[in-house]
């Protein structure tokens, strides 16, 4: 359900005062429920370049044009062949044959959404790489599908790290893709984990309220309406006070630990019931684990404090994020709004889950949480103001609401995974043989294509009157792939025999096939990752957390559409 949370905030801003949404909001309704107006605005201002106009490339673009991408350019200097017209839905069948592939594809794509700007560029990428580098770098994201090795290497080197590059490779039923960025910050991760209610460390107003209720004498109807967080705070405080009498003054923050203690604690909650069917107490019992789940700063968030204290201020966009993290770090070290605890808490959020309660009690509890979270927000804002970076209130609110689920990811440069270090690849072959075999086979195929060894689909590159079938020699191709892959690995590395035979066999069967279904599958997956990158919402694929020193993840998504699985290498 977390997916739909931002909706309220999302739609109020773009809806007419009468209530009913305008035509654009209605058109995008089903996606606004996922990424809200902020995500939509990001999408609408993004610029994307896609090279060249293959079936896979247009499938990716389709899924970006439909939700309302700002601008796309398709770069392709080739003319439409019969094969293109047969496998690309955005070309106009045989009518497109002989015409510019870029222009025909843009025409087909633009039909779907007149709110999007689409441009065909018929230049040769080689030329552009030499003469128009600034223009290439003007895009937010460049997507390259089955682009030749040498061109791809130059393109990747040029774009790194400002413009994100997405490299997509496919042949027949097999594919892989990777997203190349240095660091990617996500505030709105849409985490399934909700922020802590701080039952174990109740803020003073909540504790005071919970202790003030005359549980035994209050009206029985009111008793059945006490929200579970109040019951838990009360029960825990009573448990702590009793324990203090036995063990002497403690820090006041203990919680039931052993399973016997936990069981007894649940019975204590049951015993607080004044009649047998008080659902709010049943709910409290079911949620009792919140008493012994300590409210802490998640380690992934804590790691960011170190990461950003070490990093030098760089570009302006990341510096506001750095300032937010730095203020958060200071808050965690010292929270004057919760004076009894000196450290270890993230700012309180005011969003409560639903619970058994009356309206009055629920709203009362909401107000308590809201008042405290406002107080803590002020402290946070004071800390932030010392950092001399201008951050607007909306961003601050979103940041604080998500502070328990912040994510900073690291990516890799294309040259680091093309195909990757020999040792890492050898290691991957033993831990993830199928995934590694697909990655290696596609890299080898790319090399062979650049050398002109791999038969191309383009009829102009074939001897007269030969069909692709006529020149495909599967066994020979398998041998060539194997020989090429050996050069990627430390001498003597054993290939996983069965897996390698299957994977190299699949490539040899269909070395240049851009199958409509594989193209559509990739079209969806790649567009999904591009949307996550652009909106900075949800979590794209990565080589791990930016703060982690672990270096074994390559950040490549690998796909086998025979057995139908995806994996991350």
């Amino acid at each position: 359900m977390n997916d739909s949370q931002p909706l309220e905030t999302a739609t109020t801003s773009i809806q007419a005062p009468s209530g009913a949404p305008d035509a654009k909001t209605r058109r995008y309704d089903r996606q606004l429920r996922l990424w809200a107006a902020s995500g939509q605005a990001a999408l609408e201002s993004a610029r994307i370049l896609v090279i060249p106009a293959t079936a896979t490339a247009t499938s990716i673009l389709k899924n970006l044009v439909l939700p309302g991408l700002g601008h796309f350019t398709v770069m392709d200097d080739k003319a439409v062949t019969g094969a293109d017209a047969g496998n690309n839905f955005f070309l106009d069948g045989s009518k497109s044959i002989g015409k510019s592939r870029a222009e025909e594809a843009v025409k087909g794509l633009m039909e779907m959404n007149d709110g999007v700007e689409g441009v065909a560029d018929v230049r040769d990428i080689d030329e552009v790489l030499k003469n128009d580098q600034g223009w290439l770098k003007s895009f937010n994201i460049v997507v390259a599908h089955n682009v030749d090795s040498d061109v791809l290497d130059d393109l990747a080197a040029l774009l790194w790290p400002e413009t994100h590059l997405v490299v997509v490779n496919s042949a027949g039923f097999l594919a892989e893709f990777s997203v190349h960025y240095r660091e990617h910050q996500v505030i709105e991760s849409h985490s399934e984990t909700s922020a802590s209610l701080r039952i174990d460390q109740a803020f003073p107003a909540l504790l005071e309220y919970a202790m003030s209720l005359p549980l035994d004498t209050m009206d029985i109807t009111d008793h059945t309406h006490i929200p579970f967080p109040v019951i838990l705070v009360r029960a825990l405080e009573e448990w702590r006070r009793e324990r203090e009498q036995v063990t002497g003054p403690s820090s006041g923050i203990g919680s039931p630990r052993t399973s016997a203690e936990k069981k007894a604690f649940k019975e204590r909650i049951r015993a607080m019931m004044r009649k047998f069917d008080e659902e709010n107490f049943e709910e409290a019992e079911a949620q009792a684990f919140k008493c012994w789940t300590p409210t802490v700063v998640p380690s992934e968030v804590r790691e960011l404090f170190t990461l950003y204290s070490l990093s030098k201020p760089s570009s302006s966009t990341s510096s506001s994020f750095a300032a937010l993290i730095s203020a958060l770090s200071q808050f965690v070290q010292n929270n004057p709004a919760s004076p009894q605890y000196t450290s270890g808490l993230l700012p309180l959020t005011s969003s409560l889950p639903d619970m058994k309660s009356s309206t009055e009690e629920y709203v009362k509890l909401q107000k308590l949480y809201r008042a405290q979270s406002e107080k803590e927000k002020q402290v946070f804002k004071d800390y932030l103001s010392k950092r001399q970076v201008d951050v607007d209130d909306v961003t601050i609110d979103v940041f604080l609401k998500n502070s328990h689920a912040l994510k900073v990811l690291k990516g890799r440069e294309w040259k680091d995974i093309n195909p990757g270090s020999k040792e890492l690849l050898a290691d991957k072959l033993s831990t993830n043989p199928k995934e590694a075999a697909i990655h290696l086979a596609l890299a080898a195929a790319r090399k062979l294509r650049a050398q002109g060894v791999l038969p191309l689909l383009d009829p102009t590159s074939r001897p007269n009157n030969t069909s692709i079938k006529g020149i495909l020699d599967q066994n020979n191709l398998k041998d060539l792939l194997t020989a090429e892959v050996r050069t990627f690995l430390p001498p003597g590395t054993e290939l996983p025999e069965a897996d390698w035979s299957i994977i190299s066999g699949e490539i040899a069967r269909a070395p240049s096939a851009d199958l409509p279904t594989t193209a559509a599958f990739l079209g969806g997956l790649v567009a999904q990752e591009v949307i996550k990158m652009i909106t900075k919402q949800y979590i794209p694929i990565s080589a791990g957390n930016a703060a982690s020193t672990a270096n074994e993840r390559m950040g490549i998504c690998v796909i086998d559409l025979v057995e139908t699985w995806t994996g991350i290498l």
Partner: protein
Amino acid sequence: MADVQENDWEGRYDHIDQILDAPGPRTDEGFMAGDGVKDFLRNQAKILVIGAGGLGCEILANLALTGFKDIHVIDMDTIDISNLNRQFLFRPKDVGKSKAIVAAEFIMNRVPGVLVTPYFGKIQDKDDDYYLQFNLVICGLDSVEARRWINATLVNLVDSENPESLKPLIDGGTEGFKGQARVILPTITSCYECSLDMLNKPTAFPICTIANTPRLPEHCIEWASVLEWPRVHGDKKMDTDNPDDISWLYAVASARAKEFKIEGVTWSLTQGVVKNIIPAIASTNAIIAASCCNEAFKIATSSAAYLNNYFMLIGVEGIYSYTFEHEKKSNCPVCGGESLSLSINREMILEELIELLTERQDIQIKNPSLSAPTKQLYLRAPPQLAEATRPNLLKKVSELIPDGGEVTVTAGTLPFSLSLNISFI
């Protein structure tokens, strides 16, 4: 090729033919590489697509490009403006028209030589003979009820004497960044009904919360739609597609929220709650539809091994997918044959048993009728029998049937019956 059609220009199938001209490392022995398989795919195979919406549009386009030339599509819906963010065969000018018809026309215009036959109506309108004409059925539906119906219908079609009667069913579904695709071989693999308990339980708000103790904006909206609408409008049916009706609900819900100091009622949330809107995007639909069509292609051509039998994708955090074999349930009411054992309290009355059957995640039978081998326990129709059996509702089940007795459960909307074996505790 056996039958070269005029629309098949030079090179048209160069991509696909790399797969069809030669077997690969994971190809079945029965694969007829070359002309044999191409002739079957392009001239003989007949495929049914159920749903021409988010998944359906994608499925139709993929099938057409893959080389299927005789495609049928059923959809009872018309096009709404909110479909246009993903249902890419539709344009603003098509709003209000039949999805099946517009989609079929678009595909036939774009992909020459493909025949798409639309049916603007319900799957329940069609009989067994209709379904028997297809080699394969692909579902892109958003309704559990429709999926259960087609699943049960295809399982019932299977005649062990006639291998042609077994119609593979490929089912896709999406929600936001998540989705799943699965291959069902009726009576052989697990069926849709076998996995009913995997569905998320829909959020239901207790009526007393709505009436007396609203806490969330959703509670205020439910109050407006469930209680206030019938009170104010009497028999007039609410049309959740009519913006005026949503505006009315929004106004009423807002007033109630204000009274109770609840924040967060918006027009959009109102619409989302009353229509039970599920977020939907083009990219997820593309992934799942591609997966469905890829399986259809592999099954129809035997060109490569196919999914066994469930592919699940979650794209919220990175790309997580899980491919597994969902197990057939021996007591599945559709494909299992064994009856479901149910232990109930000796004091439970029939009405409570019915409530249990409605709510249990693996059963979910709405408005069931129940009978024992020798007597009717409770029937909803015809009216005379409903009248005659109604008093049983308040009787204890243990007074109506013996310990270990059989009870047969039927529901008008589903073409199967569930057999229960009831014991008392």
